[in-house]
């Protein structure tokens, strides 16, 4: 019996080490478990509010698309930068590189719009990553359906290409 207990403890320890090393590269939380529904409502920004902000003469936020590159090249918010899908390690690395030199109080707006809000795999992990990096002024654009229906379909301006 003690040998079985020892074996179970060893397996648990190895699993813990493996999990930590997988996440240690960029120091981010496990992405799969972070749903968009975990983002506090006060940390979201509505489409109309963002558009008013972009039209105003004030300081513009850094806008990052954290979803599909194929969708980004078809259409994205003017001025937005592609930051990779938040749901995978490669995307989180690109996001990390996009923001690593920014002041921690920079206003950052992230968005995806690949799927309905409650099914989006990207914004939750991207938001969590930015929080983990210490950014204090991050907003997540609330896109209820998808970018096509809620932004392009409503006539808001877009840019194409890289």
């Amino acid at each position, binding site marked *: 019996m003690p040998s079985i207990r020892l074996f179970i403890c060893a397996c648990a320890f190895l699993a813990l080490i493996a999990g930590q090393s997988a996440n240690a590269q960029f120091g981010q939380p496990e992405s799969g478990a972070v749903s968009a529904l975990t983002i506090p409502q006060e940390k979201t920004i509505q489409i109309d509010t963002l558009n008013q902000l972009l039209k105003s003469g004030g300081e513009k936020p850094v806008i990052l698309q954290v979803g599909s590159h*194929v969708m980004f090249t*078809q*259409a994205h918010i003017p001025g937005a930068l592609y930051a990779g899908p938040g*749901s995978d390690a490669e995307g989180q690395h690109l996001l990390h590189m996009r923001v690593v030199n920014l002041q921690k109080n920079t206003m950052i707006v992230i968005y995806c719009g690949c*799927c*309905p809000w409650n099914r989006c795999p990207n914004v939750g992990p991207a938001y969590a990553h930015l929080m983990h990096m210490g950014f204090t002024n991050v907003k997540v654009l609330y896109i209820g359906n998808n*970018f096509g229906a809620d932004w392009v379909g409503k006539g808001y301006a*877009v840019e*194409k290409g890289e």
Partner: protein
Amino acid sequence: MPWRRASKVAAIAVVVACTFGVRAQQGVTGKPAPNFSRVALDGKTVRLGDYRGRVVLLNFWATWCAPCQAELPHFAKWQRKYGAQGLQVIAVSMDDAPAAPYALVRKIRPGYPVVMGDDALGTLYGGILGLPVTFLIARDGSVVERVEGETDLITLEMRVAKLLAR
């Protein structure tokens, strides 16, 4: 002077057209389905035009899209059920790289061709800016319907059956 005014108007028109170009391209329903030719993940070439005479269910999807994953087994089932009656399912993966769709297709073997999409193909179909998106294409090659997002699969199957009966 009128030509200067006309050129100004033309310049403004170009800017507006570029800005809202994606929106303006959104109407493929009721028109001939834009033709394309792509090498599928199994190495065979897929030309949409070759399926004239069949009802085509053209599904844009991605491996990271949860609602898309729910639809895949149904489309595979429909391909088996209605294939002899003239249904052809064609899937277009909007993943950024082929590795993930390739692995999934090898695993589930859907029984219909899967090609990789890109921004050009998305734009050709009016902008694929949210997934899933499914087009129903009639036997004459015209797009009958664009279905966006999670859909009622029972209703969609009825529409497919209706198109096959035409």
